């Protein structure tokens, strides 16, 4: 859980005050300081806390905040606000920018009036993502400026600067963090809060804002000129600076989190380096870099993921005929994959600079330890759904079913003992991919999607499957929230990002309107009804939809606790026949074996009672704990 105490501190207008902030909290503060009037997002880790904070503070900060249906819409909403004269901020995780890439490419052409900053939180090492794409590349494709902070203080300060750049050339700016920057906590000195207009006005100007070919021709040329002019700004920017350590023999060019791990290595081994630390990375300060190259015989480029800086530094050397030896990924010293840590960076630097790394680790074979991957929480409704679906498939004698899964907590259904995810690619893919299987094979296809993902990008896949007569069973795992990223609201809920009452959009009405005939809503805690609904769907042709609706266990917990209605379950050893079904097939993390007996951990049992149902425990050995 995110620590929410002291959130109101983020609103204080006391320049100079220091707070210990998560990178994402610092970014939220940066938006408040910059006088942002409209902020939009679709939640995605590692960007999620920015939205959680702004949603909480929106009214007090006098800004409009929206959890948009997806990233494409989020950027569209922020864009129209920015061209109506309001500073606007849109943020998302890296893969979200793929969804928003279509508008991004064209709003770069039309430009903006008030500042528009687009934040991409990249995820090197994929702590909670399906890939680790390097979104700095988007700044090149879209021809827009790129800003990269390294820590919480810079995250806040650079965001304000990004708004200045955006307004200087009326261009959207890409602000790129990574997991370690967004999820690093550090001291932040606050600045003043800018006062901006609260209500915008859109002055029509079709030649600039209607991206018809006839207009876009000229807009493209304007865009190239804007970026040309920004080169000079990057040249003199305080975000690009040189630091010297020791004799400064080797030159190092770096940005973002790579700067931190590199500097920890420099200070640990006392290396003689001079560091060109870049925060404004597109357009690059070409003169500054060529001068730096000329001053050093050897220059090392240290950056995570793609050789974004390295290829450009090599290009600059070539264009200026500089013979400096350049080291990086392209010559194999650094890897293209995963985040860096002090050990990998020390390893690479030592091979180039020739110093000894001290390796003093304790010998232990950590691979021999029992693994503990993330699991569905005790009481999670998804566990019950997966259990029921698996039983129904078995009872219906279905051979070789294909399970097409999607992005959310329920992706964890891939693990033993459920194994109900054969394919999982991106947000909303379960239905499109499922429809494809139905064309390509004779296998039964079961697709899983969460409520938030359904709204985000699942609906076109359903329309496609219905219209093209695919055979797919779609299970909408509606846990009444966007759970994985920290329980944000979504269009299926009766509250919006401002905390205001909002109309609930009905999943059942949508799928019926698309033409799905077999639509059933079940409570997954009721294993029998869920099992019957799935068995029924397995006998159907075409697209059938089961909405398995039960709120996320975390939300239920909070409510039960506040109502003091907490209960737990325990195993009655007299009745337990050690059939092992509850541990082997249902596998709630609260149930374990000790001294040859089945036990339930009273500290983590959530009291859902699903394990007590005869479908899990046929001997009625699991009973509610009776408190006196």
């Amino acid at each position: 859980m995110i620590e929410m105490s002291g959130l109101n501190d983020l609103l204080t207008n006391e320049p100079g005050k220091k707070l210990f902030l998560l990178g994402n909290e610092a970014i939220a503060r940066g938006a408040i300081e910059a006088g942002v009037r409209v902020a939009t997002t679709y939640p995605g880790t590692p960007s999620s806390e920015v939205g959680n904070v702004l949603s909480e503070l929106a009214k007090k900060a006098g800004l409009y905040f929206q959890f948009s249906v997806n990233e494409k819409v989020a950027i569209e909403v922020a864009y129209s606000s920015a061209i109506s004269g309001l500073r606007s901020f849109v943020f998302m995780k890296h893969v979200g920018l793929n969804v928003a890439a279509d508008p991004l490419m064209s709003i770069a052409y039309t430009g903006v009036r008030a500042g528009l900053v687009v934040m991409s939180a990249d995820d090197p090492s994929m702590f909670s993502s399906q890939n680790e794409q390097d979104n700095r590349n988007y700044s090149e494709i879209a021809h827009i400026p790129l800003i990269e902070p390294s820590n919480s203080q810079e995250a806040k300060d650079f965001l304000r600067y990004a708004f200045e750049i955006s307004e200087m050339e009326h261009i959207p700016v890409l602000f790129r963090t990574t997991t370690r920057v967004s999820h690093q906590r550090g001291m932040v000195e606050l600045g003043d809060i800018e006062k901006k207009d609260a209500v915008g006005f859109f002055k029509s100007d079709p030649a600039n804002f209607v991206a018809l070919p006839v207009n876009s021709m000229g807009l493209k040329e304007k865009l190239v000129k804007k970026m040309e002019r920004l080169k000079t700004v990057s040249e003199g920017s305080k975000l690009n600076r040189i630091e010297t350590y020791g004799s400064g023999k080797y030159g190092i060019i770096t940005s973002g989190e790579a700067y931190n791990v590199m500097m920890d290595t420099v200070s640990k081994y006392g290396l003689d380096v001079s560091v060109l630390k870049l925060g404004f990375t597109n357009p690059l300060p070409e003169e500054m870099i060529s001068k730096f190259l000329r001053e050093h015989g050897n220059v090392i480029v240290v950056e995570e993921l793609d050789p974004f800086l390295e290829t450009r530094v090599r290009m600059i050397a070539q264009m200026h005929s500089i013979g400096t030896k350049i080291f990086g990924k392209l010559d194999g010293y650094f890897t293209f994959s995963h985040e860096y840590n002090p050990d990998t960076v020390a390893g690479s630097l030592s091979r180039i600079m020739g110093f000894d790394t001290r390796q003093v680790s304790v010998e232990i074979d950590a691979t021999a330890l029992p693994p503990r991957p993330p699991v569905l929480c005790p009481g999670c409704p998804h566990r019950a759904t997966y259990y029921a679906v698996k039983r129904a498939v078995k009872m219906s004698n279905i051979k070789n079913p294909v399970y097409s899964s999607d992005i959310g907590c329920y992706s964890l259904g891939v693990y033993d003992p459920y194994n109900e995810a054969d394919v999982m690619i991106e947000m909303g893919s379960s239905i499109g991919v499922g429809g494809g299987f139905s064309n390509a094979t004779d296998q039964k296809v079961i697709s899983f999607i969460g409520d938030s993902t359904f709204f985000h990008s699942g609906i076109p896949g359903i329309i496609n499957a219905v219209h093209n007569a695919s055979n797919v069973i779609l299970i909408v795992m509606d846990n009444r929230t966007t759970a994985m990223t920290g329980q944000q609201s979504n269009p299926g809920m009766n509250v919006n990002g401002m905390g205001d009452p909002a109309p609930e959009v009905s999943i059942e009405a949508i799928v019926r309107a698309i033409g799905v005939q077999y639509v059933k809503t079940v409570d997954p805690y009721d294993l029998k009804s869920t099992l019957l609904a799935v068995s029924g769907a397995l006998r159907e042709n075409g697209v059938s939809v089961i909405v398995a609706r039960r709120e996320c266990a975390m939300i239920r917990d909070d409510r039960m606790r506040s109502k003091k209605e907490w209960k737990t379950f325990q195993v009655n050893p007299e009745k337990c026949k050690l059939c092992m079904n509850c541990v082997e097939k249902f596998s709630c993390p609260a149930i374990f074996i000790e001294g040859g007996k089945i036990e339930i951990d009273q500290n983590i049992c959530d009291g859902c009672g699903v394990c007590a149902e005869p479908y899990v425990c046929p001997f009625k050995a699991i009973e509610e704990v009776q408190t006196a």
Partner: protein
Amino acid sequence: MRTNIIIAGVGGQGVVTAGLLLSEAATIRGMHVVMSEIHGLAQRGGSVSVDVRIGEVYGSIIGNGDADLIIGFEPIETMRAIARASNKTRVIMNSEKITPVSLSMHDKEYPNNAILTGMADKSIEIREINAVALAKKAGSYKSVNTVIIGAAIGLGILPFEREDMLSALKNRFSGKLYDINRDALEYGMEGILANQSASSS
């Protein structure tokens, strides 16, 4: 001067809160602190670890062998973190066992401590503490992380004092909750000094 602390446990045990408390106590002392905090999928009942770095540091990641202190909230997770230790690293291990589903699912039980602590080479000293019992004695299971922090302070290797942690607790808790946590801190400090090391027993 640098102090590197790894806090390891299971999602939901209060590992992040412990990191925040340590950070806060250090900032009360006016020290520079950087802390890593991983959110998202990685949190859900899986292994969690937080790195707290105090002093002259840049990034939030502690390199292999660079940890001064490992605070393990759970035996298996303590051992997992020890893979990042050196023989100079001090280790505190809470004895509360949380059986990973990967064991139960295959009808297996939690390994006993001797097997676990025997996995690391003998050069490393592991100090065990029954923080759950002490937390309950203080008045709430939830004060487990305060007990463990008390144990860390008791070892005398943190760059701040008990009073700084009391101020940090005061910022976070009030009334009866503060009293519980104040007691939990004391019990942790006394407890670690009374206990023998688990690896040498």
